[in-house]
């Protein structure tokens, strides 16, 4: 199972069927999704010189979505024309994602596997997405090394996670899990969270050069997430570019 924590997989499998209900248990992810997609699509478009205003701008790009869950990110990437591999350690998530994509006529290669197993198989991608994943793996350094291996030189790794701050404890653990009940209790272990500095360090060590860090902030009255250049105190995204083989430290 590589760096995937079996207990973590179990937590999500129990509620996998309801992945796609925007008002279901994954409502927080659905609410966050437009913001994450804005960031991911713009970063990939900028890196690969694509124009997002034309149909299927990602035609010909190979994208890996690690920890794809029910396919919330994989499906949009496929709709934009990319050749998508969606990987999730949970067989049940993969089953849900396959059914959902098939109903919508989207061809996505969903695999119940791990980043480490894919890296060993020699698969390489123009962009590797690991959104809301790194906080759930048991060995973040090993996970990022696998991500680094999976990205073609010059390609991108895009990560999003929760910062380890007093504010993130108050909002994401006390607020979202205990008070609002948005997430099942125990979804996040605050002590495992990584600061942007720590995540950047792990990326660099894995041959991935951080090129952008952006926050995501939530406005409760408008019930809307937006990207923030300055406020990385709770949710944040990080883009890292795969260095050339000779420049990368191998782990």
């Amino acid at each position, binding site marked *: 199972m590589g760096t995937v924590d079996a207990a973590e997989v179990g937590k999500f499998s129990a509620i996998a069927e309801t992945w796609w209900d*925007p008002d279901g248990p994954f409502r927080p992810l*659905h*609410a966050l*999704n*437009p913001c994450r*997609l*804005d960031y991911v*699509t713009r970063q990939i478009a900028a890196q690969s010189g694509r124009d*997002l*205003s*034309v*149909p299927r701008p990602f035609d010909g790009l190979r994208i890996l979505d690690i920890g794809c869950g029910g396919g919330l990110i994989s*499906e*949009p*990437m*496929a*709709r*934009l024309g990319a050749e998508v591999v969606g990987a999730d350690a949970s067989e049940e998530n993969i089953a849900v994602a396959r059914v959902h994509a098939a*109903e*919508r*006529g989207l061809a996505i290669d969903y695999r119940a596997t791990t980043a480490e197993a894919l890296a060993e198989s020699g698969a390489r991608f123009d962009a590797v997405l690991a959104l809301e994943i790194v906080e759930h793996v048991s060995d973040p350094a090993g996970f990022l090394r696998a991500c680094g291996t999976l990205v073609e030189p010059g390609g991108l790794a895009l990560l999003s996670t929760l910062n380890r701050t007093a504010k993130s404890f108050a909002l994401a653990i006390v607020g979202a899990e205990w008070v609002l009940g948005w997430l099942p209790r125990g979804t996040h272990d605050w002590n495992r969270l990584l600061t942007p500095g720590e995540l950047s360090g792990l990326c660099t060590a894995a041959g991935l050069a951080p090129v952008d860090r952006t926050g995501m902030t939530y406005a409760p009255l408008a*019930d809307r997430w937006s990207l923030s250049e300055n406020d990385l105190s709770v949710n944040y995204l990080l883009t890292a570019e795969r260095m050339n083989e000779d420049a990368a430290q191998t782990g």
Partner: protein
Amino acid sequence: MNHDVIIAGGGLVGSSLAVALSQAGLSVALVDPVPQRTRSGDGFDGRSYALSVASRNLLRALGLWVELAESAQPILDIRISDGRVTDGPSPLTLAFDHAEIEEGPMGHMVEDRHLRPVLLNALDRVTVIEGSVTDHLAGPAAVEATLNDGRLLSAAVLIGSDGRHSGVAARAGIRRTGWDYGQNALVAAIAHQRPHEGVAHQFFMPEGPLAILPLKGNRSSIVWTERRDRAETLTAMPDDDYLDVLRPRFGDFLGDIALAGARHTFPLALSIANSFVGPRVALVGDAAHAVHPIAGQGLNAGLKDVASIAEVLVLARRRGEDPGRSDVLARHERWRRFDVTALALATDGANRLFSNDNGLLRIARDLGLAAVQRLPALRRGFIREAAGLSGDRPALLRGRKP
């Protein structure tokens, strides 16, 4: 899927949306029962629209304003007064001057004969289908619409732009709230001796408001609201008798008046859809909200819908989202619901307050209008609201593409 979006109803709002979406690269089918050429006749039929600054911004962003600017009459001032027929037009009680907002004129009067062909000529990237949508079925991947000739079309989203009796809304199970005002709006173009200087007037009469809106030349468009039985009597009158009834209301400040186009009458009824979205369905224009036209905001509200749903769908497409998903369409609902409710309540309240000859209410109105006149900040707020410049707005209303 044949298209990204099917639009049922090709009036001004439906056509504007088709232009906005097609310019953003979406594939659009526009279904309308009336053939294009019969809607784009050159003759002046007396209909015109008071376009807000926000609506003008939208048309400019779509590249259409350049063709309309020359024939559009800028509204430089709006004067609102309270009157009784026996008194003639009452002393001025409230004036909004465009110099109080930085955007220039508070709006423009545009005639239907100019606006409609400009929109229709911009549909070159749209699949225009003569017919009507008679049924639809929303599925997991697409919505399938059945046309009156039995043809099937599929798309990610079906837009109901089919008026206050929207079949799309009804078939989506969307109920409506509203009531009949028991009033009609009489609409006509009036020629007058003296220039209007770009001033729009709204006279609040006990029978209902009379709006006088400046057109190019020595002409104005009137929106004259009367009780339904009176309106029917007036509509049946020959032109000369009609003008005889209008004169004491219109007053003589523009000199003698004559008719300058056909007369129209519209029953006034508030009708708001309880939801602006349904499964793979979104409503725009009168299908979403037909409000009392007291503030001339019907088309403006429809164009706000256009800006809202266009931005929602275009951004969804750019992100790779399924544009027909409920959480995507809910963004349109959220964006428009508050605004529409506020407008409906405001125009309904104003109409009830002003359409009344009770002496106490009359004093309250005079005091209220005078108070607004004295408070610059509040006045600017009124002007910006009327000009469509308040609140968090979609890009098109700011003159930019989403």
